[in-house]
């Protein structure tokens, strides 16, 4: 009767709700849009939007939805979780090199080896997106970049400083800058990934002293704690903290804060990758040519060069339901029209392109001109370790924050990082660990 009906109604209501929850998931899955997981720095965002606009104009039946996500370990983790749980976007931008190896590329990404545009991509890049089974999986998303010190040329001119070729010269410059009332070295631990630059950019110097390091490291034979040249990076980070050369808010400042200080001349040295020049071009175009670049110096003035990063790459998720549309987007990004021209138009060039036929315009920013001098000379570049070895510990950026904040000594940090790397190597199932 009445009460029974009410009971049935409650049961029906609950069942209906459950059914609805299943439906709502299904309804949203029916879109034929492509979803793209893009980086969140200003330059990449501007490029992505311009590239997508051009792509959609040429392909009116495809709609690209851009999702912006963080960088650093957070991105690593988001990518890994999404791939592991089958919730990755159709196409996604992610690092090449060792981080690419760590996401199980054979299972997670689509094989692009036989695509026509692959022949126009430079070999040095193709190496970094080759899966363990020898297939190619990604196309470049951006340009190659150098890792070293971005510096404010104007302050250098005002204080009469010259580009340091050794670490001691660098520290001497810092002292003079501090006396002038500016922050010698900018650190931005609000974005933890930026704290790794001292270690990572120093690899040219490590490679110069220990040419076998990368191979031995992958085999588990070389350790940071036991290799003085490798530990130098941690030591450098500790040195600038100890000397009091950091900006006051280094603990909470973000990448954007750092670039603002650099462009304005409030801070003079910023260990960073040159992709950031693109962001300066977006946000502080008037100060763009006040910013220059030099390599992180070692001990020897005659052996001075920069560590080079390949750009991030665009991959197609193996589980995408929109394979054809995804392949069209990737082909566009691998072409001059989609992969080079938008960057040129935005004046956001940060290094050489990896696609044949893409020339750098003559009016590139000052920092990029500085970077080019390393490429044109012989033996002044070395690829970053993550492109020579599949092993990179997930906690490096936390460890470098500790070193850079004076919480942990360089020796401890190196030991800790070796442990961290060991976990990663074991999880990857590498022999010898």
């Amino acid at each position: 009767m009445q009460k029974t009906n009410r009971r049935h109604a409650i049961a029906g209501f609950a069942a209906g709700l459950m059914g609805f929850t299943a439906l709502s998931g299904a309804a949203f899955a029916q879109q034929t849009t492509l979803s793209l997981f893009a980086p969140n720095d200003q330059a990449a965002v501007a490029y992505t939007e311009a590239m997508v606009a051009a792509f959609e104009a040429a392909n009116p039946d495809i709609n690209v939805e851009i999702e912006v996500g963080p960088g650093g370990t957070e991105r690593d983790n988001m990518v890994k979780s999404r791939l592991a749980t089958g919730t990755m976007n159709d196409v996604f931008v992610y690092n090449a090199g060792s981080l690419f190896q760590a996401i199980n590329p054979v299972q997670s990404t689509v094989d692009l080896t036989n695509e026509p545009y692959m022949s126009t991509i430079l070999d040095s890049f193709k190496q970094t997106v080759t899966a363990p089974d020898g297939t190619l999986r990604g196309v470049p998303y951006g340009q190659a970049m150098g890792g070293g010190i971005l510096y404010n040329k104007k302050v250098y001119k005002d204080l009469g400083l010259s580009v340091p070729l050794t670490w001691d010269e660098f520290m001497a410059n810092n002292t003079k800058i501090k006396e002038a009332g500016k922050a010698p070295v900018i650190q931005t631990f609000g974005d933890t990934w930026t704290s790794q630059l001292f270690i990572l950019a120093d690899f040219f110097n490590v490679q110069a002293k220990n040419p076998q390091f990368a191979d031995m490291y992958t085999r588990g034979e070389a350790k940071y704690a036991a290799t003085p040249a490798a530990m130098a990076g941690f030591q450098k980070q500790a040195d600038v903290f100890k000397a009091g050369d950091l900006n006051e808010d280094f603990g909470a400042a973000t990448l954007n804060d750092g670039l603002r200080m650099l462009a304005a001349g409030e801070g003079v040295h910023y260990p960073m990758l040159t992709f950031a020049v693109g962001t300066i071009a977006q946000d502080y175009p008037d100060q763009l040519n006040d910013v220059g670049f030099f390599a992180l110096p070692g001990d020897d003035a005659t052996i001075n060069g920069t560590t080079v990063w390949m750009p991030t790459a665009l991959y197609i998720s193996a589980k995408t339901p929109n394979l054809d549309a995804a392949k069209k987007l990737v082909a566009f990004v691998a072409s001059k029209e989609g992969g080079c021209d938008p960057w040129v138009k935005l004046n956001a060039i940060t290094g050489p392109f990896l696609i044949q036929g893409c020339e750098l315009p003559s009016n590139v920013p000052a920092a990029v001109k500085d970077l080019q001098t390393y490429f044109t000379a012989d033996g002044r570049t070395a690829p970053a370790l993550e492109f020579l070895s599949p092993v990179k510990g997930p906690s490096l950026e936390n460890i470098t924050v500790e070193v850079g904040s004076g919480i942990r000594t360089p020796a401890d940090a190196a030991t800790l990082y070796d442990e961290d790397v060991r976990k990663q190597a074991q999880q990857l199932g590498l022999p010898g660990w």
Partner: protein
Amino acid sequence: MKSRPSILISSAAIAATAVVFLIPFAFIVLMAFKDRQQSSLRDFSWPAGFHLWDNVVQVIATRNWMLVTAFVNSAILTVASVTLLVIFAAMVGFVLARRKTRFNGLIEFLILAGLMIPPAVVPTIWLLQGLGLFGKLHGLVLIEVAYGLSFSVLLYRAFISTIPRELDEAAIIDGARPLDVFFRVILPLLWPVTVTNIVVQSVAIFNDFTNPLYYLPGNGNATVQLTLYNFQSQFNTSYNLLFTNILLITIPPLLVFLFFNRQIVAGVTAGAVKG
């Protein structure tokens, strides 16, 4: 006992609580009214213009109306979970309070375990994947029910023990079947504690961040808390939008608070004072 309220202490209390408890909310509101430039200063200044509406529109439209999807998802999640919780927990609490079986000790232990033991997240993910429930909203509903049962059962058991058995017995003598006794006699009498349970669980599930983070990855399924968390990256230079988002997701609890304050307070003190 003073017969007159102390003006001094009262004013001090009002002022102190305003500074400590109200200023952060005032900050949120102020930031939501500013534009991008001014909000990046992160100070407590008065907004230069009235940008609230623009900010709200921009936040809601971000990433293809993701916030709207999120609100819908959170609403479905909350309503479905709470409905199931009320029914199932009341059933358990009822039999637990009325009938002495040898299982009662075990059940008490399991309830306490549910309050204390942290859920084993990775095994749960593995299990959900096996059952095909991972990353689905109805999977999360069942999870929220599983985690919320302990508190709800305790609530119901305590309250049912205050309903005289004579009522059950009278209904049985009248020829009522077990389900009838439960739904026609007991459940209506449980209305006060049900309202309390609904309110407390709704707030908890709406504000839940950890469980959707682990069990509902992927943006199509996002709940409001996850969306707020993800938008930190999206709005990394637009504090005005970020705080507008915070303001928007504070509205449902505010409404609940205005209408159901008494029930919440009753709910959380239930059993607390009686031990």
